[in-house]
Structure formats: structure tokens, C-alpha cells
């Protein structure tokens, strides 16, 4: 019975087996999850953000636990684009959708990265991480400044013909405005939200818990914020949206589709339950069949609003 549900969606020109992807920085380079789930059970994954050169992140402590969430200040530690293309990509099954995430401190870094990644037929799309909330130079400025963001998206658009997805920062006054800017600058889709800038303190030592002082809040705690932003962005633009932020269950994922997301990403929960993404994909099918939807795509924007 559940078998009869059509789970496919098209996100920004990328055909997905199911709307369930996994979020950048929470799924490594994919291979780490081999012991726990078959990558073919999910729609695909966004790899850890890449920089042109290998980058080693912040000193410890890098993470902390908070109510229904966690803080992180990793600072985009990654093996660099070349090692990714040479070592990580070939290790993945051919039919796994891989979206590459780009990070840089200058628009030209992003453009170079996008161009290089676009040479690989294994890359289904490019996600611009313009929103890393804890790196002074880079992320946060791009994602928070309309002019910088528009310029960044245009530069990357010119550099790559791949489906282009911009991942937005939640640390802004008007998310809808940022979404519009990306759309007019040529983005094919949007991902939101990245972690919310936050802080935690240890009262015993009287010091910030994170070496970086500030970090990004993620996990179920931020889900209602992410859902609101996806809802607002979906009403502001026509390009498809991938919802991310605190998704822990199939019901959570359904909420994002109802609010207008075409796909979703599972993030922090992968750490706690490395099988979560596959369970969520299965649970969405059960929800759809229980509710009489023939296609998961029919859930997109299917929120019923009180008529007033």
C-alpha cells in the first residue's frame, strides 16, 4: 500500500528519489554513514562545505549541548576541493545524488570552486554556503548583506551551469528579501536555514563554552524558526526551497513541505541517529498513504490556511 506512493521530486533541476537529503556538515563526505544506512534510501546528500585549499578548523571546544539543540563552531574544516574530487567522490555509489557546498571568504573563491566542481559529472548541484554563522570573514557577511549576496550569487551563476542553490543565513531581518535577491541573481533553488548564531557560557569556569565564543545553534530547538523562514521565503519566490532546521521525524519533514519546501535536509539528528534520514524518508511515505496523497510532491505547499 505504501509502496504505491510516488516519492520523487525535482529540486532546482535535480531529480530526487525522495525529498529527504542530508545537510552539509552533518553527513561528512557520505561514506561515514555506510555502516548505518544505504545511501540509496535517501534523496542524496550535501557534502561538507569545501574551500579551494584544505582548511583546518577551530581549536577545541568546538561543540556544546543546549536545550533541545547544540552549538558548533567548527569553522569549515575540510579536505579541500581537490582531495574531495580525487578521493571522496569516487568512493560513492554511482547513483547517489551528491550536492557540493562551497565556502569562501571572497566571491572569486566561490566562483573558482563552483567552476572546478562543475567539471565533475558526479556533482548534481552546487550549494553556496553564504551563511556560516561563526566565521568572521566569509559566510555571515555574504548571507546578511543584500548587495554582497546578490554579487556573490551572480558571480557563481556565471561560473557554473549546474543547478545552483543558495543556502541562506537565518540571522537576518527579512528572509523573504534575501530569497528574492538570490532568485533575481540567478539561483535555481534555496536552502534554509543554516544554524542560528548563538552563545553558551560555563558558569564554573566563567568562560565561553566554545573556543570561538560564538557558534551556530542547531537541532530541534530551532525548528519553529526554520519553518517560519521557509514559509516566508516560499511566499517570496518561485524557485524551489529545501527546508532544514531541527528536523527529527517524518512529521517534522512533512511540516516543511506543507509550508512550501520541495525537499528537506536532515542535519543534527544524523549525529544522534545515523539512520534518521532513511527513517524519515520511510515515515513520509507512511504519512502520505495514511492521508491519501498519491505523491509526496502533492504535499508541497499543501498547508490549509484559515480563509479570512
Amino acid at each position, binding site marked *: 500500500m505504501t509502496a504505491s506512493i510516488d516519492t520523487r521530486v525535482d529540486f532546482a533541476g535535480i531529480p530526487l528519489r525522495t525529498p529527504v537529503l542530508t545537510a552539509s*556538515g*552533518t*553527513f*561528512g563526505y557520505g561514506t*561515514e*554513514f*555506510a*555502516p*548505518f544506512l544505504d545511501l540509496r534510501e535517501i534523496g542524496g546528500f550535501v557534502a*561538507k562545505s569545501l574551500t579551494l585549499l584544505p582548511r*583546518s*578548523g577551530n*581549536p*577545541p*571546544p*568546538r*561543540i*556544546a*549541548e*543546549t*536545550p*533541545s*539543540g*547544540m552549538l*558548533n563552531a*567548527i569553522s569549515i*574544516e575540510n579536505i579541500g576541493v581537490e582531495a574531495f574530487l580525487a578521493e571522496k567522490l569516487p568512493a560513492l555509489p554511482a547513483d547517489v545524488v551528491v550536492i557540493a557546498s562551497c565556502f569562501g571568504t571572497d566571491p572569486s573563491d566561490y566562483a573558482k570552486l563552483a567552476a572546478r566542481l562543475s567539471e565533475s559529472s558526479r556533482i548534481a548541484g552546487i550549494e553556496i554556503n553564504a551563511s556560516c554563522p561563526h566565521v568572521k570573514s566569509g559566510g555571515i557577511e555574504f548571507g546578511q548583506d543584500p548587495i554582497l549576496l546578490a554579487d556573490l550569487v551572480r558571480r557563481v551563476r556565471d561560473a557554473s551551469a549546474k543547478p545552483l542553490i543558495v543556502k541562506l543565513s537565518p540571522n537576518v531581518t527579512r528572509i523573504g528579501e534575501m530569497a528574492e535577491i538570490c532568485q533575481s541573481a540567478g539561483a535555481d533553488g534555496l536552502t534554509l536555514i543554516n544554524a542560528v548564531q548563538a552563545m553558551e557560557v560555563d558558569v564554573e569556569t566563567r568562560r565561553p563554552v566554545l*573556543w570561538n565564543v560564538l557558534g551556530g545553534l542547531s*537541532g*530541534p*530547538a530551532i525548528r519553529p524558526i526554520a519553518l517560519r523562514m521557509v514559509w516566508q521565503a516560499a511566499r517570496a519566490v518561485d524557485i524551489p526551497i529545501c527546508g532544514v532546521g531541527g528536523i*527529527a521525524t517524518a512529521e517534522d519533514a512533512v511540516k516543511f513541505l506543507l509550508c512550501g519546501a520541495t525537499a528537506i535536509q536532515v542535519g*543534527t539528528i*544524523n*549525529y*544522534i*541517529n*545515523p*539512520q534518521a534520514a532513511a527513517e524519515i524518508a520511510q515515515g513520509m511515505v507512511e504519512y502520505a498513504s495514511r492521508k491519501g496523497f498519491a505523491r509526496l510532491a502533492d504535499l508541497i505547499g499543501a498547508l490549509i490556511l484559515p480563509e479570512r
Partner: protein
Amino acid sequence: MSPPKPECGPPIRALAEVLENHREGGSNHRLTLAIEGWPGAEPGQFLMISAGAVTAVDRTDPLLPRPMAIYRGHARVGSGPARIEVLYKASGRGTRLLAEALPGQRVRVVGPLGRSFPPPTASTRAFLVGGGTGIASLFELAARAVAEGAATRVLLGARTAADLMGVGDFGRLGVELDLATEDGSVGIHGRVTDALRPRLEQPSDRHTIVYACGPTPMMRACSELAAQSGARCIVSLENNMACGFGVCLGCAVPVVGGGFSLVCRAGPIYEAGDVAWQGLP
């Protein structure tokens, strides 16, 4: 850094049954789990355990699982589940909730994780130095050392007698056992490193291995004592962890020569000389 030993595994995710979970002096607890499909583990590996028993509905606070050493793994009886013991200190939010788990309840586990200790051989002069909860990482190693016929001395330290974990178990292994407590309530009056120092006074070679697990200052002191006498020193590090299997990058520690190493994946076992001690949290 080349890992001391290829990692064991592959890890599994399981809903383990609590067989026993009782207090053992101070705030130390012994948790015995029955785990289906357990692939077996090597000395020094660990588990990620949910912060408290699984309830009717999943609660998102506390959110993260807790890393815990596999204290002792019991040979599986026929095709039944494996019996795994964990010794832990009920200190913070998660472990205090874990201490409330009742027999018959379930806890989520992911493991075995991390790399194991380079095994001692018959020619090894092994000093296993454990401080506080670090003791829990050493029992399987001690058992292995005895089995290999290594000359094995176990040195365990804690604040006070009640805080000393697993002393009886180590005793039953028939190893030479030195105890140290900061209040002198049992063993020598002082730190476990004070018990180690005299043992390393004679210059020793690389067949002498100091295996240390405990508070960072203790492990650092062990590595210095070992270095002075020419012995090899292997440590088991701790760090905050979200995943335990190498994807969150949260557990990174600085290593000699620059860059970071993931305690959950490249560690928790390290050659003391590879660790950039001054950079540890």
C-alpha cells in the same frame, strides 16, 4: 598521524536492554547492557549511549548521546545478545539521567567506535595508569595484557576510595595493582602519577609501555614520566562528542605538527608524543 591500529567494527546502532544499573561507591555506576548483533570490540573502543533510558516518546533534551568506554564485553552465550558493561560517573545531566535507567528499560547505543590500544605482547612491560573514570578504558586492555603474558602492573587513582572504579575486577585478573587516593583513604596518599614515578626511575626501553587514561593533566604527566625514562606512552583522550563516528568534527584535538585529529575516529587512542598537550581543552 598513523593510527596505532586499524579500527574495529563496523559499528551498529542498537536499542540495548538494561540488565543491571547500580551504584558502586561514590557516584560511580555499573551499567550492564544486552546488545543484539554486537560485532565485538577491541580494548579501548567506546560506545555512544543515549543520555538516559528511552521513554515512550523521544525527548530532545538532553539531545546528545554520551561517549562511554566499553569497560568489559562478555563472550556471547550461543546466539544470544552480547553482554557489555560500562562504568560511569553520574556527574552531569546525561549521566545522572542514565543512572535512573532501570533493568528492563532500554538505552540507545552506537558502537563500537574509535580505535583500540596497540596490544601488549609477551615482551611488553605494561603499566596501565587509570585516573577517575579513565579507569573504565583500561580493563579490557589489562585482560589482554595478562592473556598475552605481558608483565602487567595496573595503577589506579582517584580522589577517594569510594571513587575508585573496578578495583575488584582488576584484582581478579591477577595483575599487580597499585592504588592511590588524594585523601589517602586507600593505597598511597597522593596522585596515581606519584605511584608511577618510582616504577619508571630506571631507564627503560620501548618495550616498556605506559598506557594512560584519565584527566588530561594526569595523562600529560604520565607521558612526561615515560619520556624521561625512555618508555613508550599511549593515552586515551576525551573530548566533547556529538556523533562519535567522524562526521560532526566536534571532537577535534590539536596534534603535533599542526592540524587536528578526531578523537572519535583517529583516537581516542594516541601515542602521547603525537598529542599537542598545550592545546587540549
